[in-house]
Structures are given as structure tokens and as C-alpha cells.
């Protein structure tokens, strides 16, 4: 594993930007900024006419590193240690679980907690606990 530096100020600032985006989406479209919900509805079945807006939001997410590189001339470190098999299993579980549980870190962890939703609190505590347990097993039991 790689030791990462503690970055409270950058993390607080970045978090505030995520919050700002969530507030702006609510102001503009009246919808929760839940990435799993938005991404999942790029695929059929289609229940409404919001496809283009969702695609634009996801395109913005993907384009963000391009913008950061343009402005600062560099990108911060990104270390993906997992091999192909773990990436596939992890991706399947992440996609399935976040949709099955009606949201992920953004929908439950940011928007839901901000609205004092009990369901989101249960969901957030559950995925944090499951994530911590998984890392503990992977790093300290082998």
C-alpha cells in the first residue's frame, strides 16, 4: 500500500465544491445529485425524458480531469492498485449494490444526510462499515 498525506484543507474545499454541485442541481432541475441513480438511468428501461441532462452531468464528471489538467498543467496522483479481476468484481458489486440500495456516497452520504433522511443514515453507516470491514480483511487478514 501507498501512504497518502492527510489533506484536511483540500478535502474540505473539494467537499464544499461537491456540495455546491448538489445544491446547484437541486436549484436547476429539482433533483438529488446521486451519481449511481444518474448513471444507472443512462441505460434502459427509460422512465422519463431526462436522458440528455443525465448524460451531460456524467460528461461533466468525465471532463473534470481534462479541465484540471488544462488549468493547472498537471493532475494529482491517482493510484489504482487493484488488478483486472478485482476491478471487475468490485465494479459489479459497486454498481449492483449502489442501485439496489437506492444510492451511493453522493445520494445517501451527501444529499440524504443533508436532508436528515433516516434511510440515508442507515445506508451511509452500512456502506462505510462494509467498506472498512473489506479493507480490514484485505490488508490485515492475509
Amino acid at each position, binding site marked *: *500500500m*501507498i501512504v*497518502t498525506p492527510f*489533506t*484536511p484543507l*483540500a478535502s474540505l474545499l473539494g*467537499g*464544499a*465544491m*461537491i*456540495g455546491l454541485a*448538489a*445544491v*446547484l442541481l*437541486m*436549484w436547476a*432541475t*429539482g*433533483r438529488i445529485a446521486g*451519481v449511481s441513480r444518474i448513471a444507472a438511468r443512462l441505460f434502459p428501461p427509460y422512465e422519463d425524458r431526462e436522458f*440528455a*441532462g443525465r448524460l*451531460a452531468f456524467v*460528461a461533466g*464528471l*468525465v*471532463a*473534470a*480531469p481534462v479541465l*484540471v489538467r488544462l488549468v493547472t498543467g498537471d493532475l*494529482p*496522483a491517482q493510484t*489504482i492498485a487493484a488488478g483486472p479481476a*478485482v*476491478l471487475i*468484481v*468490485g*465494479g459489479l*458489486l*459497486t*454498481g*449492483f*449494490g*449502489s442501485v*439496489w440500495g437506492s444510492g*451511493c456516497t453522493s445520494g*445517501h452520504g*451527501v*444529499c440524504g444526510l*443533508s*436532508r436528515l*433522511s433516516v*434511510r440515508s443514515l442507515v445506508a451511509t453507516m*452500512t*456502506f462505510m462499515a*462494509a*467498506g*472498512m470491514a*473489506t*479493507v480490514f480483511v484485505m490488508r490485515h487478514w492475509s
Partner: protein
Amino acid sequence: MVILVQFAIGLIFGVGLIVSGMSNPAKVLNFLDIGGIPAGTWDASLAFVMAGAVAVTFIGFSRVLKLARPFFADRFYLPTRRDIDPRIVAGPAIFGVGWGLVGFCPGPALTALGFGSLSAVIFVAAMCGGMVLARFIAHLPPVSRFVTPADPLET
């Protein structure tokens, strides 16, 4: 216009993920690694991401939701359920295992595509497969012999 606005909002969200460090799986895994606390390798940064995001959203939502309507829509679409059903525990439990295996949740995984790494492409492809599967199963006709009438006046 609304499409452009949503692109810009996604851009702000994505830059926030990068600035905060959420887009780096190593950082996420070091946060989830509470076993690293004694060794001093635990990275508490992500608690600050959460705090910053929730603080801004809490204040912002309370103001925005006082408006008559969203700028580009007729009404606000807000979840209203308060019951704790098996899915609200099982889903996040499954998601949490995936999160702990790789260090990506859906937002940062999509932003990682823009970093140009093949690993992110593999993860996102699998993630989309999982999402489609979850919705497919959820949309299967109920197996129960008893069905609640859809008409609200009948329930």
C-alpha cells in the same frame, strides 16, 4: 440551456472530487483502513470531504427548497420514504464491499475515466453491468400471488 447547466454542474462535482482526493482510490482505501490507525497510515481526509459537502448541501438545500420551483423544472423530486426495508441495508452492504475492494464509488469512478486509465474503464464497465442487473431484477414482475392495487383509491 439546461443541458449545458447540467454539464457545468457535473464539471464542478468532478473537480470537487479531484481537489478533495476522492478520485484517488489509494486515499479512499487508506481512509477505510481503520486497522492502519495504530501504524499511523490512516488518512482521515475523507471525513473532511464529507463534512464540507454535507455542510454546504445542508444550508443550500434548505434555501433552494424554499423556492416555488426549480429553475428549469416544474417541481422538486425528493425521496419521501422513511421505512427501513431489507434493500436499504443489503444494497449499501454490497456496494461497501465493492468500494473497499477497489476504492472507487460511482462518482470518482466516472471522473477517473478522464484520467485516461484502463483500470477505470474496466471498473466502470463492470459497474454499469451491475447497475443494469440491479434494475433488471427490480423490474421483474412480483412472484407473490397477492398484488397491491395500483389505484390509490383501492388501497
